[in-house]
């Protein structure tokens, strides 16, 4: 009897140890939706799905939640990092923000953009890239296989990402994005578009938006030599900017002659409601974000409204204020920790979808009560690119950067010898048939031509070769903070194309891929109260940078060209 007891106890202990060790390594999946009213009467909806798989060495090849197609992709091509985005529309940096985590990571050039870092020897990277493009074109129903030819991709060194030499970057500016690209993207999710937040994705509503961008980001430590093995992480985001339909109340004019913003709800912008969470997800949340600018305007409104004897607007009750009202009380209100000064901060209202079901769907409504006008935080420079000259006569590409109003010293500028300097990188790829003459580079600061060496810290040029490779330019510039505008011009000639090299719709012309401007010294992040529960939200933890990394994370607004 005693022996049996001892045996049973041993078995129990063993099983508990086994399950304990197993439970440390688990696949995780979480889904989130961020809604944000934008300054120009539009609404931003940002879906974020994150899936994590433990390392193969300890967990094995079979996964429950992680999509098999991507796992096999990582294994076959030995991918360390990869990002693929499908975008239509242009991100309006002035109205929608240029200095927040969403715009820095989700404002993508139109068309298809793909970059990948491989863990293979240098001579095999190009072959891996070719096979990767073909596989992705079959997986996502797009012509990504056009990136296989050497005229379509480039190998940036430091201008795009601070990585080593096995990064390949390619972009197809004219690629159409439609339902057939979203279908396989959704099929990678454990619940697909049948349950959870992805049920909101009504295709006509998404593609009616002013901007829509679906992004897939893979990072793995399967093949690297890092000590910390974190397995494979997959981030899928869909960012849509929608225009809610105006209601009758909008016709009311107010004292300041401004029109009330249109009220919206999930069912009015998507035509659907959330009828439950995806049961395979660890967390399924909806967030509504109120920007700093909007928050400060609301405080002013509250002060005017209540008179001088009113108590301060407590954040717990801000979801019902004189400016707007949310139809459902949030589960939690998260306030940003403002380490600079304790003025207004970003507020997030969190909703947990666990309690909602088919019989009681989640339909959040946002009703504006008073017209409010605010502005979003801007990047240090506002960039635009255009062509000068006509045809072959003095044709030139010009990148123009204008300083924006600094929003209350939000960014840390690099101080060198007590003088404030602004640093930024420019990365531009131009197809071979636009023959850029790099020796004609001119820099105009505040309208006056300057010597190139005064402002350019370093530059890497890869001149184009006819029908072989595009022209790549990576430039690091440094300017004093007081500069108002910078313009870079490069002259070009048009190359000669054979008749079979023209696309079938040659009347529409050719698109040059977007250039990327990045600010290595600035970080776009939001700091929240250090709380364990926040770490469970992948969206918020991506927004939140731990303090030790302040100042090292870069923000990358892209400059778009049509």
């Amino acid at each position: 009897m005693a022996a049996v007891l001892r045996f049973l106890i041993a078995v129990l202990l063993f099983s508990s140890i086994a399950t304990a060790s197993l439970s440390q390594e688990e696949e995780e999946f979480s889904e989130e939706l961020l809604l944000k009213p934008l300054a120009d009467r539009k609404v931003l909806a940002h879906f974020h799905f994150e899936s994590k798989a433990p390392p193969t060495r300890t967990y094995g090849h079979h996964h429950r939640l992680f999509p098999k197609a991507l796992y096999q992709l990582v294994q076959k091509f030995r991918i360390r990092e990869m990002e693929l985005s499908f975008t239509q529309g242009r991100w309006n940096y002035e109205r929608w923000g240029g200095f927040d985590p969403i715009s820095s990571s989700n404002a993508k050039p139109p068309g298809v953009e793909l970059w990948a870092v491989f863990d293979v020897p240098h001579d095999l990277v190009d072959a891996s890239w070719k096979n990767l493009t073909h596989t992705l074109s079959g997986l996502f129903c797009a012509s990504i296989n056009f990136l296989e030819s050497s005229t379509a991709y480039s190998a940036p060194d430091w201008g795009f990402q601070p990585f080593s030499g096995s990064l390949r970057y390619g972009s197809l500016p004219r690629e159409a994005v439609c339902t057939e690209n979203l279908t396989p993207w959704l099929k990678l999710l454990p619940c697909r578009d049948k349950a959870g937040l992805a049920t909101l994705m009504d295709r006509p509503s998404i593609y009616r938006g002013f901007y829509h961008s679906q992004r897939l980001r893979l990072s793995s430590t399967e093949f690297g030599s890092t000590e910390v093995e974190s397995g494979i992480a997959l981030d899928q985001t869909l960012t849509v900017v929608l225009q809610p339909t105006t209601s009758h109340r909008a016709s009311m004019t107010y004292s300041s002659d401004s029109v009330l913003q249109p009220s919206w709800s999930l069912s009015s912008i998507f035509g659907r409601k959330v009828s439950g969470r995806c049961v395979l997800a660890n967390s399924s949340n909806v967030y509504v974000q109120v920007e700093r600018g909007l928050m400060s305007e609301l405080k002013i409104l509250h002060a005017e409204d209540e008179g001088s004897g009113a108590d301060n607007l407590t954040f717990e009750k801000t979801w019902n204020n004189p400016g707007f009202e949310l139809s459902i009380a949030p589960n939690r209100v998260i306030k940003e920790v403002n380490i600079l000064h304790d003025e207004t901060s970003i507020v997030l209202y969190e909703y947990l979808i666990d309690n909602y079901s088919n019989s009681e769907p989640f339909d959040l409504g946002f009703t504006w009560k008073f017209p409010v006008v605010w502005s979003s935080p801007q990047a240090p420079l506002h960039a635009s690119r255009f062509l000068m000259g006509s045809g072959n006569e003095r044709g030139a590409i010009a990148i123009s950067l204008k300083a924006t109003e600094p929003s209350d010293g939000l960014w840390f500028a690099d101080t060198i010898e007590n003088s404030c300097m602004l640093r930024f990188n420019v990365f531009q790829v131009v197809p071979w048939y636009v023959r850029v003459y790099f020796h004609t580079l001119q820099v105009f600061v505040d309208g006056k031509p300057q010597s190139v060496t005064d402002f350019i810290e370093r530059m890497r040029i890869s001149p184009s070769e006819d029908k072989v490779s595009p022209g790549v330019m990576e430039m690091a510039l440094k300017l004093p903070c007081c500069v108002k505008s910078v313009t870079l011009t490069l002259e070009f000639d048009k190359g000669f194309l054979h008749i079979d090299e023209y696309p079938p719709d040659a009347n529409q012309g050719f698109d040059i891929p977007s250039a990327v401007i990045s600010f290595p010294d600035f970080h776009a992040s939001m700091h929240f109260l250090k709380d364990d529960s926040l770490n469970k939200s992948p969206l918020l933890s991506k927004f939140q940078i731990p303090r030790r990394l302040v100042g090292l994370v870069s923000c990358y607004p892209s400059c778009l060209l049509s």
Partner: protein
Amino acid sequence: MGSFFRFRAFLLLILAATHLCCNSIAHSSSSASSSSTTMHTNNWAVLVCTSRFWFNYRHMANTLSLYRTVKRLGIPDERIILMLADDMACNARNKYPAQVFNNENHKLNLYGDNVEVDYRGYEVTVENFLRVLTGRHETAVPRSKRLLSDEGSHILLYMTGHGGDEFLKFQDSEELQSHDLADAVKQMKEKRRFKELLIMVDTCQAATLFSQLHSPGVLAIGSSMKGENSYSHHLDSDVGVSVVDRFTFYTLAFFERLNMYDNASLSSLFGSYNPNMLMSTAYYRMDLYQRRLEEVPVTNFFGSVMETIHTVSAYRAPSGKNSDKDKIKLSLDQSVGLDERRTLTSSNVQDQINDSNTKVSSVIPPYSYLHIFFCISCSDLKDGKALMLQDQLGLLEHLWCTFLNKAEKIEDVDILVNYGLVIMFPLVAKTNCKYEDLSIGGCCRTIV
């Protein structure tokens, strides 16, 4: 006595010679009429829209209508190759984003939620089209972009766009000519990439596109004949362009009445086209096609309805070829007889399964042919007679099975044939039966 021996020796020689020629004829007949020896196992659809630009919206709607029909009737996305030369649904000129309509009542959104386009935009070229058909791709091309058909596939090839006398225009920049298409189909036949192929073309002068075909097993229909134009059906004033072509509109009208379980035949589909409504003559050619159109259900090409064979135990499928032969050769009039034969076959199956020592009898069909052929002189061999003999097969198979059970250990089939020869020779010499007796089954029965 001596003359009798000489007669027997002479007969032996004749039998040996006919054995050799029967082998070759049997093999050639089996390869030529492959439809009788391979089973129809899967359906594929290759849907091609070759037109670019917004004013060719209707060609996209045509192709998507067929895509929707084919998916609805059972062919999965993995077996459909959809080639769309331009993007209409998310086109900046489309007032209804992510929606494509083929009717001005806008009841049906053809684009839906789950569309998968394999070749799109600039990828739809004559080169890629021919690569898909012939299966000659670069190694990196993924499986979803390949036509992975085999000798048991029925393929539906639908092409729409702008065409003319012996050509089809691809994206305003190149042409596919009728002899190119015929060559590609011939390559497909050589490589056994299809069992039967249905080509449907909706362009102007469509029938000229398949005028050069000469591979067997191909059925083709075009929306108009040489010198005729194909017209669009109606204009949608909301979208701003014509939304569907007449031929496809009436094809869809036919299919919308169907579901997966209907067995409307191809002849009713082809007969449903009214030249007055189409404003052109829908011409089809069936000279390369062996089966009669009344017997072919439309789901053989447009859907994916598979015959299920019920088995008692898992993992021991019966030889599908037996039941398939019975199904193909009997016309619909003999439905009663079909049931009989089906039950007989299934009882055969039972016998085979219950007898645990039996090997799966993939060896049955050709050799039963051969043994019948021995009984008659091979110079009389014509398809008709073989058919009649095959009707007897159901009855004979039972006996054959018992024979095979005994001969289970024989691996080398040639030895089996030689044994048969040796056994049969003295009997033939003795009985000296005539053909009429054999047809009723008298002589061969005793042998087998």
